[in-house]
């Protein structure tokens, strides 16, 4: 078996820095920032690091039900979801993820669109 994306890009600490950078960009986005107006970013980044770790084949796992319940009250639109995946793609590219791995991670997020976006 080949190593997971998680371990190839440096494990927990490295992923947490990428996630942190990702959220810097998200908060810079006029479209996305309002969603996080009352969010404690330290907790958010901690959660997201675990979430991204799980999508990259690292430890921790999140069920779709869990994702759905935490996103339900946020009323996330299609456009906002699109902007977020674009920022994610750019962040991963800027951290020198190769194209296949960027595709894998963005694909993992897109696959969960149904439980994240309001419908």
């Amino acid at each position, binding site marked *: 078996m080949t190593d997971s994306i998680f371990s190839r890009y440096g494990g*927990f*600490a*490295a992923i947490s*820095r990428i996630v942190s950078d990702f959220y810097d*960009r998200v908060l810079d986005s006029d479209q996305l920032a309002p969603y996080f107006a009352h969010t404690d970013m330290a907790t958010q980044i901690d959660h997201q690091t675990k979430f991204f770790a799980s999508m990259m084949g690292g430890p921790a796992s999140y069920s779709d039900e869990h994702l759905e319940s935490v996103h339900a009250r946020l009323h996330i639109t299609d456009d906002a979801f699109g902007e977020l995946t*674009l920022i994610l793609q*750019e962040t991963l590219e*800027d951290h020198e993820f190769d194209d296949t791995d960027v595709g894998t991670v963005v694909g993992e997020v897109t696959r969960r669109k149904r439980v994240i976006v309001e419908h």
Partner: protein
Amino acid sequence: MNDTHRQVLQGLDSAVALVGAEDWSVLFENAKFFRWFPGTGGDDELLTTRMPDFRAERAQSRLEAGRPFKFELKVTVEGREDHLRVTLEKFDGASEPAYLLQATSIRKEMETQYMLDSYSKMAEKNARELEREKDRVERLLLNIMPRAVFEEMREFGTATPQRFDSTSILMLDFVGFTDMAIAADPSAIIAELNDIFSSFDRITEMFDCERVRTIGDAYMAVSGLLDESPDHAANIARLALRFRRYLERRNQAHPQQWTARIGFNTGSVIGSLVGVQKYVYDLFGPGVNLAARMESMSEPMKITVNEETYQLLKNEFVFTERGPHEIKGFGTQNLYFLEGELARR
């Protein structure tokens, strides 16, 4: 820009530069930018020269789409390495199309990351060791009790005695073991016994039976304890035959001869953990006692069963009748020697 503004920019701890969008020419830079990206000191050096790792193509496509471009890189100033995060974005305040470049040191972040890394590696290592230790303890405990009992004990801290109605119990004992141990080299004899019992353990597993325990030179196995298999009597009969055959073949190849008496019996037993600190899993009840009697009334390299067990197995196995015998605590019963198994259709 007035002088105050310029002084503020020059004094910043971050690098700031204005870059021409057409050709990456550096239109303005502050002191920190020069310190981190001095280039070769020539006039009019482009950003792509000053920052050799800069990925101009990717930056251009990103910036032209109106999106910021960020990346990290390392610089070495006066022999000290520093990690930087660089951001480029469109800047509208200049007289020509330009990008604003900012760079800040993330050395502290990298230090924290390193610490986090080494800490999580340590935690993972400890977790792995703990897991290994847990496995080892589990394996040890599974040697002395059935898995179901082990799981009950792990869950509740204790295991209640349980009655098993359909089981078969086998007892095996070596003839003249005490004399053997004294006559020959005792440690060599024990080593051989250990070797034989280890083989018995493997055979027991092969026939879906379980070793209950060994007492000195006696070996006790049971079938039907884990799964209520209707074949428990046949399984234990095959086990007995295989034990005997193993010993016969071993005796042909070794100077030291091992002769065993074997008996088995079908009936109900009570299984329970005994003891608090030093516990063993043991079986109790008349079914066990009768199995012990069958063994003691058996003969060297023979397998003895009573009438009831014979009736269960007579269609699948070959027996010879031994006639009625007085069995202490069980009255008079017809006994049989198990000789072999009928060919299975």
